[in-house]
C-alpha cells in the first residue's frame, strides 16, 4: 500500500525535470542523461548493423572492429588498439591535453588504465632482448666476480692477531670451571 503511494509520488516528481535517484526509482529519465541510441548494444552481425555501430561510436566503417563474440559481454563496443596515452603526440593541441584526447573520440575499453599516470605501452629505447642481455649479463658478471672473491680472497700478508689469556677464553664465554688449552704467544 505504502509502496504504491510512494510510486505515485515519485511519478509526480518525475513530471518535473528530476534526474538521479528519482529517475532510478521511478523508471523515467531526464533529458540530460544518455539517450538510448548512444548506449552500447549487442554484437553487430550484418554490415548495416556494423555501419550503424561505427556511426554511433564516431568511427569510420573501415576502422570499426568489434570485439570477437565470445560471450564476454563486450557487445558492439569497438576493439581499439591497446596503446596508452603516453604514445600520443605530446605537442598536438588536444581538446583535453591531459588525456591527449579530442572531443567525440571513441574511448578505449581500458581507458582508465591507459591514462598518463598509469600503464605505459610506449616502446623502450633499446630492444627487449638487448635490455635483458645487458641487465642479466651485468648481474651474472657481478655474481661470478663475487664467487671468485670467495674462492680466492684477498688479504694482507700478516699472521692472525694474537690475543692474551688463552685467546680470551673467558671473555668469549668459555666455561670458568674447565681448563682452557694453553695458548702462548712470543715476541718476534
Amino acid at each position: 500500500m505504502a509502496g504504491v503511494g510512494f510510486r505515485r509520488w515519485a511519478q509526480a516528481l518525475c513530471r518535473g525535470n528530476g534526474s538521479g535517484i528519482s529517475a532510478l526509482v521511478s523508471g523515467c529519465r531526464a533529458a540530460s542523461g544518455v539517450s538510448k541510441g548512444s548506449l552500447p548494444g549487442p554484437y553487430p552481425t550484418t554490415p548495416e548493423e556494423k555501419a550503424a555501430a561505427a556511426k554511433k561510436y564516431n568511427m569510420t566503417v573501415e576502422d570499426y572492429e568489434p570485439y570477437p563474440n565470445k560471450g564476454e559481454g563486450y557487445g558492439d563496443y569497438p576493439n581499439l588498439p591497446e596503446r596508452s596515452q603516453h604514445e600520443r603526440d605530446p605537442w598536438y593541441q588536444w581538446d583535453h591535453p591531459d588525456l591527449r584526447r579530442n572531443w567525440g573520440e571513441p574511448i578505449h575499453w581500458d581507458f582508465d588504465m591507459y591514462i598518463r599516470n598509469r600503464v605505459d605501452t610506449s616502446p623502450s629505447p633499446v630492444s627487449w632482448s638487448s635490455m635483458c642481455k645487458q641487465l642479466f649479463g651485468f648481474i651474472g658478471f657481478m655474481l661470478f666476480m663475487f664467487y671468485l672473491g670467495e674462492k680466492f680472497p684477498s688479504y694482507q700478508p700478516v699472521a692472525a692477531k694474537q690475543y692474551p689469556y688463552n685467546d680470551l677464553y673467558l671473555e668469549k664465554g668459555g666455561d670458568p670451571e674447565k681448563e682452557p688449552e694453553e695458548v702462548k704467544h712470543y715476541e718476534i
Partner: protein
Amino acid sequence: MGAHLARRYITETDTEPDPARKYEFDPQLGFDERKEREMVANQEQMNLAQLPLEQRDYCAHHLLKLMKCKRDNWPNFLACKHERHDWDYCEHQDYVMRMKEYERERRLQLRKKRIEAQAEAA
C-alpha cells in the same frame, strides 16, 4: 702489494701460508730462546673499562691510559696526543710482529719443501 697473492694462488700454491689455517711449526724452532709476550692490563681492569673483544689485545694497557686521559681532559679533545701515540705505536709494533710471523711461516714452509726435495733426490 699483491705479491703474496700471486705466490699463493699462482706460483707457490703449496708453500705460501694460508691465513685461515693455523701455523704448524714449533714457535721455538730457529730461536735460542724466545721471550713471551707480556700482558700488562689484567682481565678485571679490561672488564671494568668494558673494552670490546677486538681491543683486548697486548696493547690494552695503553688504550686504558688513553681512555682515562680523554675522560679527564674532556672537552679538550686535543689533549691526549702522547697517550694516543703510545697506543698507536704499540699497535704498530704488534702489526709488524704479525708481518714477521707470516714471513717466518713462509720461509719455514719453503725450507721444509727444500728438505723434502733433497730427500727425494737423494
